[in-house]
């Protein structure tokens, strides 16, 4: 296996792919968005609950988040990792984390110490896979931007 390829398929990625975290629908979700990669048909739905924190006068935070869908190891692992990091973040914090992530997958450079996200640095030598790596993130961004829905079950029966 070439260096590029083992860079792409890091252990962290293989692990998240095999045992995705926070996978499935979130019954208490009040923000939902769906992303697809028309090039390959990969799909990812993100369900999250945005709510005011315990402390008053603070912006809303992601109190719970799950994902669902199908895709390659890169897209599945990236979505899984994303859910583990999103919890507790405000929308602004999430966006700034995505900016870092985007920089990593497009340049291979991690702007600051960002833990597990750096595992995706290998993506930058496979430009066609950037869309895979960001699929779940885009769904989450769209969910954060979407209008508040009622909970998932209600939104599904509408």
């Amino acid at each position, binding site marked *: *296996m070439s260096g*590029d*390829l083992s860079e792409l*398929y890091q252990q962290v990625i293989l692990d998240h792919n095999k045992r995705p975290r926070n996978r499935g629908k979130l019954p208490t979700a009040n923000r939902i968005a769906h992303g697809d990669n028309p090039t*390959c*048909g*990969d799909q990812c739905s993100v369900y999250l609950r945005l709510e005011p924190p315990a402390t008053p006068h603070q912006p809303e935070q992601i109190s719970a988040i799950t994902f669902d869908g*199908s*895709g390659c*190891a890169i897209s599945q692992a990236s979505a899984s990792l994303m859910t583990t990091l999103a919890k507790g973040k405000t929308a602004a914090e999430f966006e700034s984390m995505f900016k870092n992530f985007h920089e990593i997958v497009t340049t291979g450079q991690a702007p600051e110490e960002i833990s597990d996200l750096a595992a995706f640095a290998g993506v930058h030598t496979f430009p066609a896979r950037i869309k895979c790596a960001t699929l779940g993130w885009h769904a989450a961004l769209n969910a954060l931007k979407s209008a508040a829905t009622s909970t998932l079950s209600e939104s599904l029966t509408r």
Partner: protein
Amino acid sequence: MSPWKNIRADFPILHQQVHGKPLIYLDNAATAQKPRAVIDALVHFYERDNSNVHRGLHALSMRSTDAYETARARLARFINAAATEIIFTRGTTEGINLLAHSLGAKLRPGDVILTTEMEHHSNLVPWQQVARATGATIRYLPVVGADAEGGLDLTQLDQLLTPAVKIFTCTHISNTLGVINPVEELCRRARAVGAISVIDAAQSIGHGPLDVQAIGADFVVFSGHKMCGPTGIGVLYGRREQLESLDPDETGGGMVANVTYESARWKPAPERFEAGTPNIAGAIALGRACDYLDALDRAEIAKHDQSLTGFAYDQLAKIPGIRLLGPTGARSGMVSFAFSDVHAHDIVTFADEDGLALRGGHHCNQPLMRKLGLTGTTRASFYIYNTEAEIEVLVTSLRRILAFFGAG
């Protein structure tokens, strides 16, 4: 000497390395590679004859008109049609859109367009659009079996092919399943209920003899780039009587007999359907591709591709956990497969490291994928220059990939 003897030498692109490995091009269903003769035809045209066609009386213009019309006659001969029945298009997709727009304009609510569940998006979405615009209904002849191994369900024809069906359209060979559909029978049945038949020959044109009279279709469409021709050129064949009553979809220079500020009259077919400057060099080089394939003998091409595919199928079937789509028996030059644990994209990326060019995804067959419970497959598709040795590399590579992902 048999033109097959040194066939790989005819294709400059094959002699390169990818990631330090010899290129093994198994993405022929997406596009075929070009022999030197076809590339040379382009160069020769631009170096000697380039000029616009039809409207000129000087030497270059007469030469290029002549070469363009000779190419039309060559394509006609290739599929046993008349030159006036050959319309040059950009490719299959444009041909189908032309038909969907022009035939579609005559549909009314209650009319039915019958197609199949295994169509390429290009032979599906244009008809959906027409159905929506006219109030016609689109119906699907289903595929049989969990892996579509039974091909089309012909037992449903009686029920689906009613006199309400005005247009029947179907792919000759599925670009995902590799199944060869019985288009002769289907066109005959369609004609019996008064339906116009449209055959998508994108996957069959390069892989064996194709005789539009034997098929009995009213229209047949295909792309040049899948039969060793250049990109940007294709053919719409239309039976003369059909073309005569068909309105053009695009209008403009070259297809008009007379124009005033108030109105215009059309030329007869095929000019009526070729508005504007055509892909002249592309058409001429496509004619040269016909020569190339005929020199190999198209029956021999079919034999080669099908035997290679049989070999691939048998080798792949031995891989534990593999799910092979389409029929086990007679199939054209491709095999589509899936694993429950490893996604097609990861396979394609890994295989690329071994010099293998595969395709992973929905192959423009999303609805079929969904019906089969898949989001995509990996597809290996073969052509005249592929070998059994290349397929062995594929199988070895796949086993290694599965091992890496802890599958298989």
